[in-house]
């Protein structure tokens, strides 16, 4: 059964449980939703061990779910490939084998026309993150090319690119330098005027006791003209124009009063009409940015918590996103601009089957860090941010 409407299925699920007075809750569990076990310690199965598997980068290429992880402590992260159709892990690559000393792939992937994926890393001891080129073969093999360190002593916190210009853009950690990488010439360029200023840092760190991950842009996006959208402290929505290499502040990010210093873009998606949708970590607002008019519309918060860690667009034309984060629970939500607006789907709970648990167990997603749609938009894939993280997948109906 393909589901006709998530909302309807949700309602049906609820009614099914309820009897005459609907009081108890079901979780969001469309019948075809499923989990893929990607993490398990001490096993012969192809799994990621504990503390190295928080799925912080995620994309889908044909049948392949491709992930990059963040490890805890000084452990090394993984790249992995899982099959959407087979519902199982296919390939695992310990990044330490190719690029030692890294702990996190948290930028997401930027894909070029040649099916190469670009991602940045954060490092453990040296501080020097790397830019990676990742190619997943038809056999699900993972080939990693180390393109070097964009900013010595700095990690790569966010990344996007422009396929027509053959450019990659990123934000360095902890200083917040905007940098570019020319795919053709292999040259990095660091924009020194883009870093967090000492005065800003004084406010953010000394007065508000924030860490760079609390105020640096965690996600960037390019529009159809190749302009690059990001944020800079404090709470500024900024566009970089590759033509003149200048940064322009478009506006403040939508703020809940008092939380301006937490304002930063941490997710973006584009809809077919060319509109950009962004997530502000500061208080978890979804906003719309029209690149044509440069107007920002604050669409509000789906749920209580701040953070909005991921956005993507389904085949049904709806935006799917991840609202909230620790110390709260992540809520999966959808947003239909032309219809019902927000629908909070809460914690998804799908059946996870694998060798040894063939009967299936229910897996509830509490802490989700990444969300991506399949290329046809018919599947939405979510990755967890746990000590042992799994994938959760659900189908959406084509069209509305």
């Amino acid at each position, binding site marked *: 059964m393909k589901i006709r409407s998530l909302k309807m299925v949700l309602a049906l699920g609820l009614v099914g449980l309820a009897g005459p007075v609907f009081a108890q809750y*079901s979780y969001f569990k469309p019948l075809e939703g499923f989990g893929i076990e990607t993490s398990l310690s*001490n096993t012969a199965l192809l799994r990621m061990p504990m503390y190295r598997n928080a799925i912080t980068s995620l994309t889908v290429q044909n049948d392949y779910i491709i992930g990059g992880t963040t490890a805890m402590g000084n452990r090394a992260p993984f790249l992995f490939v899982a099959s959407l159709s087979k519902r199982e892990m296919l390939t695992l690559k310990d990044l330490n084998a190719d690029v030692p000393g890294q702990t996190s792939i948290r930028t997401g992937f930027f894909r070029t026309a040649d099916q190469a994926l670009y991602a940045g890393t954060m490092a453990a001891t040296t501080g020097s993150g790397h830019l990676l080129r990742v190619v997943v073969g038809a056999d699900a093999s993972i080939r990693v090319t180390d393109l070097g360190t964009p900013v010595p002593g700095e990690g790569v916190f966010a990344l996007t690119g422009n396929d027509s210009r053959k450019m990659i853009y990123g934000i360095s950690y902890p200083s917040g330098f905007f940098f570019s990488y020319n795919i053709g010439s292999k040259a990095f360029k660091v924009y020194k005027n883009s870093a967090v200023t000492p005065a800003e840092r004084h406010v953010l760190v000394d007065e508000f006791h924030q860490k760079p991950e609390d105020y640096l842009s965690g996600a960037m996006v390019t529009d159809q003209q190749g302009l690059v959208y990001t944020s800079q402290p404090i709470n500024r929505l900024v566009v970089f124009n590759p033509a003149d290499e200048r940064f322009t502040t478009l506006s403040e990010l939508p703020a809940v009063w008092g939380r301006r210093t937490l304002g930063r873009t941490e997710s973006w998606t584009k809809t077919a009409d060319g509109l950009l949708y962004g997530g502000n970590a500061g208080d978890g607002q979804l906003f719309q940015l029209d690149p044509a008019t440069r107007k920002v519309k604050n669409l509000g918060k789906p749920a209580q918590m701040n953070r909005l860690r991921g956005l993507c667009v389904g085949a049904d034309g709806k935006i799917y996103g991840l609202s909230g984060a620790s110390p*709260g629970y992540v809520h999966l939500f959808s947003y239909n601009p032309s219809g019902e607006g927000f629908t909070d789907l809460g914690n998804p709970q799908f059946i996870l089957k694998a060798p040894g648990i063939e009967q299936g167990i229910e*897996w*509830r997603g509490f802490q989700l860090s990444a969300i991506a749609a399949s290329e046809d938009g018919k599947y939405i894939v979510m990755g967890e941010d746990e000590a*042992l993280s799994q994938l959760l997948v659900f189908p959406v109906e084509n069209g509305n």
Partner: protein
Amino acid sequence: MGNKMAVCFFLPKKIRVKVFIRLVVLAGLCQVGVLPASAQQKNNKDNIAFIKYTGFPDAHSTWDDIGYSKQAGKVVVGVTNHVDKVMLYAYDVTTGKMTNHGSLADRGHLRPFQWQAKIHSKITEGKDGYMYFSTDGGESREEYFMEHPAGYSGGLFMKWHPGTDGFVNLGLGLPYESVKDMDIDPVSGKLFGISYPQVHFLVYDPAKNSLKDLGRLGSSHVPRVLFTDWWGNCYYVDWRQRLVKYQTAQDTLLFARESLPAFEGTPGEKIVTGITAYAKDQKNNVIYAITYGAKILAFYPQKEGIGRVEDLGGVADSRSNIKPWGPYVPNLNIGDNGKLYYFVGGHGNFLIENRTVMMEFDPKTKKHTILYEYPVDQLSEATGSDTKDQFGNLYFAGRRELDSLDHSEPFLIKFNPGKKVSR
């Protein structure tokens, strides 16, 4: 199903079978059903007593929250109204006196929005003589009004001293989460906790006020039981019902390669819920455990590595009308005779429909003996692990159904295999 199980405690029972009192029973509390034909003659009603908690008219239930203070010679139980009031009771095993030591909220200086619906953890003795435990939201409000306002603010570690009556609120586990069970490393004094609903394994060192979150270990339903070995290592299960050992010396987790034994066909929600009760026999280096899938296991812990697990079979002789994984046993004690004692039934999972039976199990012969059988209005459920006093009396936290709307009355069960028990 995971979720349904989590909330079924406060759902009205949709289907209630009227209980016919087939056996001659003495009316009222503190009186027990007479022996079924199958019971051994040495265990009669003088071997078991139901003991009231006094001075708490809206007492509703107890939830695994029982333990024995060796230093004070007292059985300590947390009794709850199952909404927002939990009272601490101590039963003096020598004098037979039951004393109410006040509410957790008042003694822990909690504000009304910091309501605690129950203690769901064991109550366990530290070498400082304090009895340690943790608190639970245990309510629809917790499960659904997530992220507090005005849901559940979070479960706490606490300790109470049966000698001095000293009480210390040791602070929160995780915000918005219950601490479903806890245990203590008697050597280092470190506390272990498991959070609900996120199944995070917590290590709290009261001496340093240091709380470490070792992360999520479970599925959608939280295994309720942690237990420790003689070296202070702590055991739990992952979602595949593999033992997970917190190695206290190394401060790391070790996962068993294999899952614990389960009956073929055991549903996933039984698997992920793990162990429901345990009893320790240190002399013989064995810890007996019962799973939510109704297996009895003998686990032989080792200081290093994960020890051997032996499958002792089901919790009851097989019956054609009962799935082998079906009976519910959230309690276990071991007698001085080396035999296991437990009550089967509760939460809708009975061996005999709507009747709770007390079982004797001999790990050597693997023989099951039904000692007592109760209609649910006399005994609907018993909880508690490994609670034995210096006289060899075994204790369980029992309750009986009062109506079909989930009203119940809790009481302490005292049992001695082969000896008369006093109240």
